[in-house]
């Protein structure tokens, strides 16, 4: 930037542009990374602030091999293996060293032997076992030494016909460990053993019965049928699934219980028991859910059903609503916007259908729940009502209907009315009869007088 400043100085340029241009330029300079060696300045300038997207490999000649002096020769050298007892000499290639040095054969250290105890004749007196002869025990220990205590191999190679017994792996192990244990105890009494020795001593305890039982169980496990294996696998899968989902299930259950807890009711419901109250409640809910379009539309539909709009209008309204719905109503005029949204068409039922579905219309219903039998409204009034009751009782018709359906109630009312009419007619008849009789008597009396 100093170059830029120099130019400005040379040109004797100064002014407010100086400060404004310089400050951001200096900032930019700080963020620019150092240009890698293998790239020209012009190309780097084109790359801008971001590092190049590909690695730039400098084209260089391969480095000259660095010869570190003379090549070390190999020599075909005899070596003695200390692991061998016969001093047999083999040859192998070795690096030549100056001066020639004879190192111990490096693989000799892998020649390790298992320490199998050796017992004397005197010690064997203690180790006696009725099942094993001295010869067989010796044979066993030789095998143990030969096969480094690989008991499976020892059992595989075990051939001692003199004993006449088939020895199992457990028999062999039990004998070996019991001999080792007794021998150890014999040489160092139990109370004089070091902790390590005690540990070894305890480890030599071989429980033959348990081992045999374990092996029998292993045998059973090995001889499972495919079905058993499949079932076991299935159970295992199920178990893992259950344990995996346990936490989630608990969570879900908790949430469910939380939902099941009913919120405490606020206030009495008595204002909403009547049909008017219910209507009011519905209004409230509709208003509160103004944003819920679906509910609103239902409400509108029911409103429209009440207005006997006629079926011709509703399809037109529906199409306009469809048109304005997804397009945001941009095409529709203001009048269309103001018209209520989709109307649900209410089907007019024919009389047969009304009868079939039991739809009835009532002018006025008293609020509250009641028995239909109580709906029987007697048209007969006053004293005749009781006479009607008496007449019905005389006819053995119960004043309370057994099955008060709408139609039976209607017929019952008709019956009552008819009975009332009849009773009225009889009353009128009686009255006229009486008057007739009185008048007749008066006429008789007048005749007698005259």
């Amino acid at each position: 930037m100093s170059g830029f400043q120099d130019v400005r100085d040379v040109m004797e340029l100064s002014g407010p542009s100086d400060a404004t241009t310089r400050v951001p330029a200096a900032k930019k300079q700080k963020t620019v990374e150092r240009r890698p060696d293998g790239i020209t300045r012009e190309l780097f300038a084109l790359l801008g602030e971001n590092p190049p997207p590909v690695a730039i490999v400098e084209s260089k000649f391969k480095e000259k091999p660095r010869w570190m002096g003379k090549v070390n020769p190999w020599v075909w050298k005899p070596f003695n293996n200390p692991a061998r007892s016969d001093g047999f000499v083999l040859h192998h290639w070795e690096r030549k060293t100056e001066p020639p040095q004879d190192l111990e054969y490096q693989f000799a250290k892998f020649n390790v032997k298992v320490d199998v105890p050796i017992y004397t004749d005197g010690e064997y007196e203690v180790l006696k076992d009725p099942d094993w002869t001295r010869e067989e025990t010796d044979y066993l220990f030789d095998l143990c030494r030969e096969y480094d205590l690989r008991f499976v191999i020892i059992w595989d190679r075990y051939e001692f016909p003199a004993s006449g017994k088939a020895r199992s792996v457990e028999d062999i192990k039990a004998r070996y460990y019991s001999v080792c244990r007794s021998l150890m105890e014999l040489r160092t009494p139990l109370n004089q053993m070091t902790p390590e020795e005690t540990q070894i001593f305890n480890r030599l305890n071989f429980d033959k019965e348990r081992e045999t039982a374990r092996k029998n169980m292993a045998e059973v496990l090995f001889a499972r049928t495919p079905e058993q294996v499949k079932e076991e696998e299935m159970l295992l899968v199920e178990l893992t699934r259950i344990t995996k989902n346990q936490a989630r299930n608990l969570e879900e259950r908790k949430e469910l219980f939380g939902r099941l807890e009913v919120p405490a009711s606020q206030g009495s419901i008595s204002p909403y028991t009547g049909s008017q109250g219910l209507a009011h409640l519905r209004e409230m809910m509709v208003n509160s859910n103004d944003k819920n379009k679906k509910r609103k539309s239902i409400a509108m539909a029911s409103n429209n059903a009440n207005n006997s709009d006629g079926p011709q209008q509703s399809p037109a309204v529906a199409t306009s609503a469809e048109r304005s719905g997804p397009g945001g109503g941009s095409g529709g005029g203001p009048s269309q916007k103001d018209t209520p949204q989709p109307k649900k068409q209410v089907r007019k039922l024919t009389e047969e259908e009304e009868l079939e579905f039991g739809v009835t219309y009532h002018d006025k219903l008293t609020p509250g729940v009641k028995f239909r039998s109580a709906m029987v409204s007697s048209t007969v009034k006053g004293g005749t009502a009781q006479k009607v009751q008496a007449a019905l009782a005389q006819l053995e018709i119960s004043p309370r209907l057994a099955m008060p359906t709408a139609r039976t109630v209607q017929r019952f009312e008709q019956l009552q009315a008819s009975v009332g009419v009849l009773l009225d007619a009889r009353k009128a008849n009686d009255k006229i009869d009486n008057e007739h009789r009185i008048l007749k008597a008066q006429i008789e009396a007048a005749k007698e007088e005259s």
Partner: protein
Amino acid sequence: MSGLQPVLPSNQAPSTFEYGGDEISAIVLDPGTAWTRAGFAGEDTPKSVVPTDYGVLEEAGENGGKKYFIGDNDVHSIRPGMEIKNPMSDGIVADWEAATILWREAITPRLTKALSEHPLLMTEPSWNPPKNREKTIEIAFEDFDVPAFYLAKAGVCAGFASGKSTGLVIDVGASNISVTPIHDGLVLRKGCVRSPLGGDFLSNQIRAYFESANIPLSAHYQVLSKTAVEVGKPAEATYRTFPPGEEPTESYKRFQEERVLTEFKECTAQVWVGPGPLPTNNNPPLEAAHAILSPGGRTFEFPDGYNLVFNSERFRITEGIFHPPSMLTAPNPDPHTTPGLNQLIANAMKDIDVELRQMILNNIVITGAGSLLYGFTDRVNAEIAAAFPAPRVRVMAAGNSVERRYAGWLGGSILASLGAFHQLWVSKKEYEEHGPNIVEKRCK
């Protein structure tokens, strides 16, 4: 050594412990019934592979003795009166004189003339009797004058070649299929079983099938020239004629036919997928299966140009290995007493400690050239999985056919180049001290 320079500077010795190897330039010899393999220990393939079958001419050698023809070139050339013989029988040496000559011939022309400078490691089958083992060590020290000798079990070596010291080695050789359980590099003798259902049996199966179907079998040497013919049409070839008295012997003819049968095994025979035996003839599943496996069958052209399309027969000829009752060569071997491969594996597992079974079934190694039959390993896998549902079964078979064929040799090569192994060699001094019986003590 120069090849190693970029990774290993010349002034720095490689760390032998990285691979435990210490090459002492030992020779490994793996005598089989079909092939005798020899090479230097530490290499990955045998340098010298010769057919175990050799040609012999009576009264043609020096002093009127036998003249032997050994090696691919000699044994396949036509010589009147040359008999083709095999020194092995049931996988073990029967003719010691011929075997000695053969082994020497396998080593000397291509490896070294100076046998006395290289320790020799040989492999043997697990059923090799002690007498044969003693004879082998005798030949090694007396005839070959090797400085040290070791006799390793072929099964163990095959396991080593797959990196397994414990497992079940299924070796499909020419004379036998052997199943050898090994543990810690030692053969479990009680579980060693074998069955004469190897490659030779398969050849006989194919031969029997050709005879029953009246398919003429020709050998390459018989044909001078041939012309292409339609499928199933008689061959149009000119055959080589021999002046009377100069015809090749019957054993030579058979030996040459055997090569054609081997080719048939390699490119046409196939093993039924299993598990369970191959469905019997005219069974829809079989037809459906082979329609899927090889639509239209496979064509095989005989040396004289005669060619045929083979369908379900391809499965039928191999089925005897797994299911002896369906073999075509009855009564030899007896289909009812010869155990099939499934039975062999079951027998082997029966005599193994139950605690080892799991581990052994988890390390099944399939080797031998016979196991290269198409679909063989899949079938073995299916059969074992069906027979032992409880433990996890894992079958390993080298994908590389060279490794599969020479697994026994390769394992021997690994063994003889290990630094820790060199204490096990039976040295000449020890042999002279203890006699041939030392092999029983040392080579377990």
